[in-house]
């Protein structure tokens, strides 16, 4: 049985109830659903963040996300997986990213979901610019993200 894998890059918000419906509909052979939601935090390194601008590389982003979904599906027994990543202007507490995985077995769902967000953070061409009290600045990539991504390397 091949997996149902989908990735979306969009400015629009998404609805969590609808995303769970997508995961669960006609999917009663799956017992386990794991999801990750990332939202805009109202602070980052001590500075109060009022908004975020998310830039991406159209085309390459979708290609990378689809490649990661395929890799997750190859490595773990998953039934469905979906990534949604927003771009454009976002405010504190806005949703940024959604990664949801269904599987017959919870360990596969957890591993695939965490792999996807860790790999996305270091491989998918998105860039965040923070608009805080003291002006705008592009975020620096975190070494801790690189370290997390390396843990998944075979």
């Amino acid at each position: 049985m091949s997996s149902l894998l989908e990735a979306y890059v969009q400015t629009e918000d998404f609805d969590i109830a609808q995303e769970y419906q997508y995961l669960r509909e006609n999917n009663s052979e799956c017992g386990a659903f794991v999801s990750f939601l990332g939202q805009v935090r109202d602070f980052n390194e001590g500075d109060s963040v009022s908004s975020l601008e998310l830039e991406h590389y159209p085309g390459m982003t979708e290609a990378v996300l689809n490649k990661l979904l395929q890799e997750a599906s190859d490595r773990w027994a998953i039934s469905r997986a979906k990534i949604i990543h927003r771009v454009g202007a976002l405010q504190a507490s806005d949703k940024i990213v959604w990664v949801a995985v269904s599987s017959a077995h919870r360990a596969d769902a957890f591993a695939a979901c965490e792999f996807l967000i860790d790999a996305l953070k270091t491989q998918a061409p998105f860039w965040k610019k923070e608009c805080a009290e003291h002006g705008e600045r592009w975020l620096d990539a975190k070494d801790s993200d690189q370290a997390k991504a390396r843990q998944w390397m075979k």
Partner: protein
Amino acid sequence: MITLLYFARYREVLGLDSEQLVFAKPCTVQDVIEQLKQRGEPWSSTLSDSKLMLAVNQTIASAEQELNDGDELAFFPPVTGG
């Protein structure tokens, strides 16, 4: 002719998001970088960034990669999405 793309802080510093570049084969990504650096600042320091990332035709590439007519070469800093 190849297409060059610049993202995030590079796009802002260079004041440019894309351009077309005429090139003579054989030519590697490194050759293009050297050619762009000769424009002086801010090109020289931006393209010397030790964290510079490259993609050729939307796939991560190294500076040694050879380029072909119609290729898309993108320069960007380490990614920070998610």
